[in-house]
């Protein structure tokens, strides 16, 4: 049972979504506080702000997709029926 719950938790969309939300928040925050030297290096583009927001949006989209279309319940199959399985 715990196994099946874990398998549901372990969806690649959750991994991508989680990582990009974290990256998005960090980079956006930096983008707010970029000083003029940073801006000059980036040719005046507020690149941290824009990339941060972009990554945040991608992360949230992945999580939204996961919510709207959750992975199917894995087939009823117990570890015990397969002899010699690890764990």
């Amino acid at each position, binding site marked *: 049972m715990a196994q099946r719950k*874990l398998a549901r938790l372990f969806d690649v969309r959750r991994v991508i979504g989680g*990582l990009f939300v974290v990256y998005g928040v960090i980079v956006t925050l930096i983008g707010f506080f970029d000083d003029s030297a940073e801006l000059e290096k980036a040719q005046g583009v507020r690149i941290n702000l824009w990339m941060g927001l972009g990554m945040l949006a991608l992360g949230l989209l992945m999580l939204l997709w996961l919510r709207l279309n959750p992975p199917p319940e894995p087939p009823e199959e117990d570890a015990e029926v397969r002899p010699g399985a690890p764990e």
Partner: protein
Amino acid sequence: MSGLRLDVGFVDYLILAIYFVTVLGVGFAARRAIKSSADFFLSGRSMPAWVTGLAFISANLGALEIVGMAANGAQYGLMTLHYYWIGAIPAMVFLGIVMMPFYYGSKVRSVPEFLRLRFNRPTHLFNAVSFAVAQVLIAGVNLYALALILQALLGWQLWTSIVVGAVIVLSYIVLGGLSAAIYNEVLQFFVIVAGLLPITIIGLVKVGGIDGLFEKVRQTPLGEAGLHTWADTGGTDNPLGASWIGIVFGLGFVLSFGYWTTNFAEVQRALSAKDMSAARRTPIIGAFPKLLIPAVTVIPGLIALVTVQGLGAPDGDMTYNNAIPLLMRDLLPNGVLGVAVTGLVASFMAGMAANVSGFNTVFTYDIWQTYIRKDRDDAYYVRVGRIATVAGIIVGIGTAFIAAGFDNIMNYIQALFSLFNAPLFATFIVGMFWKRMSAWAGFWSLFLGFLAAFTLYILHLTEVLKFNSDLEQSFWGAGLAFVTAVVVAAIITPFTPRKTDEELRGLVYGSGDALVADRVWWRNPVLLGVIAVVLAFLLYIPVW
């Protein structure tokens, strides 16, 4: 202090550290899902097509590819696009539409296993061993290249980088097998793109957009010729030194079909798909991002050409290979810089993980289980796979240090093993469409085809034969291998016993259930494939 050293700050390291933690977390999570060897080596054949499709392209998007294509962009200009649009898309679509029914439909677990069923054990052993050795060597090359770039960019010791990189890849593959590799590849795909995109954006702003970029390229020694793909290919007087015949048949047909359709590190991603339709769509879905990847490799190469003073030095920090790292240094502020460093590290790990997961599968199923220890229980082979992963990576670390001793050995190893691809593709394609081709014809085609290409390569290295460039040599080598393999098959087949129809069921064109299942799934892969090829054609038009 190296001239390439980046001004990395706390936040950049934080971004890199979060990535490492996530990748390892995926390994631990994937471990819970592994109950059988099919789970470990083939992800239990459960992956949806978009996941396998992105993993398919990510397995190819190693850092050698990214750094190398940006370098080619700076050196050869837009002709580098041939590596993507004619040198990848048609082969990927062909793999999905024509070949995948045989691979997936015959339920083989690896490319060598297909050779064993279609031909015989010697063919199988030759291919399995050469593939396994190649994967370990190339994993070592990837590892060494990762260490070199971390040393240049971050000032890490070579030892530190090699061990950190190896331990992370080792951990997640030993724990989670192919599932962990594939999940991390999909993750890597997004991180790589997010890391490279700011270079293109800021770079284009700096040079005044695409028009400004092209205008500035015209003023470089590369000149107008660097802005065309086909215009000067009537002869060999173009940056790439190749005529359209070489590009279409050498690169577009033999080299590219050999790589994409028979390289197990790629095909394995499709074999993990959940059903035939998903397996066939895997390379075709991968083709769509492949169409656009030049925007973050070739374009930055051109930007580096016009903005980085002195790029193109024969050695030192200003070689073409450093185009992307130099732009990172010049253009990226802390924050996106951390994402870019993470993207580069991720792409090295993607390339290496693809090699390692291909290796452990072929070693376990095709060498250990087939020739050494048969008929053990399933859990035994999962253990063998985990031990093979550890052993493969340790040998890889060893080869990384051998590679460190030779300036150019990485190129030689890569070139050497690409010699296996062309005869393999010829043997496959003849074997799939000519039912009569005998088992021994398979072996001799593969072996003599390799020998022919290898001989030409040695003649090139010893300068007995002169070619315009290494690239031209590889076109000819691949072509010669292909022709040799086909001719050998035609000569040997009449003198050797044929395989029965029953043995060939599902393995050759027009036999068995493969085509019945085909009709059900026909529409989608073909339609998607045609769209990808048409897009590749359309993309060529503005840069003719």
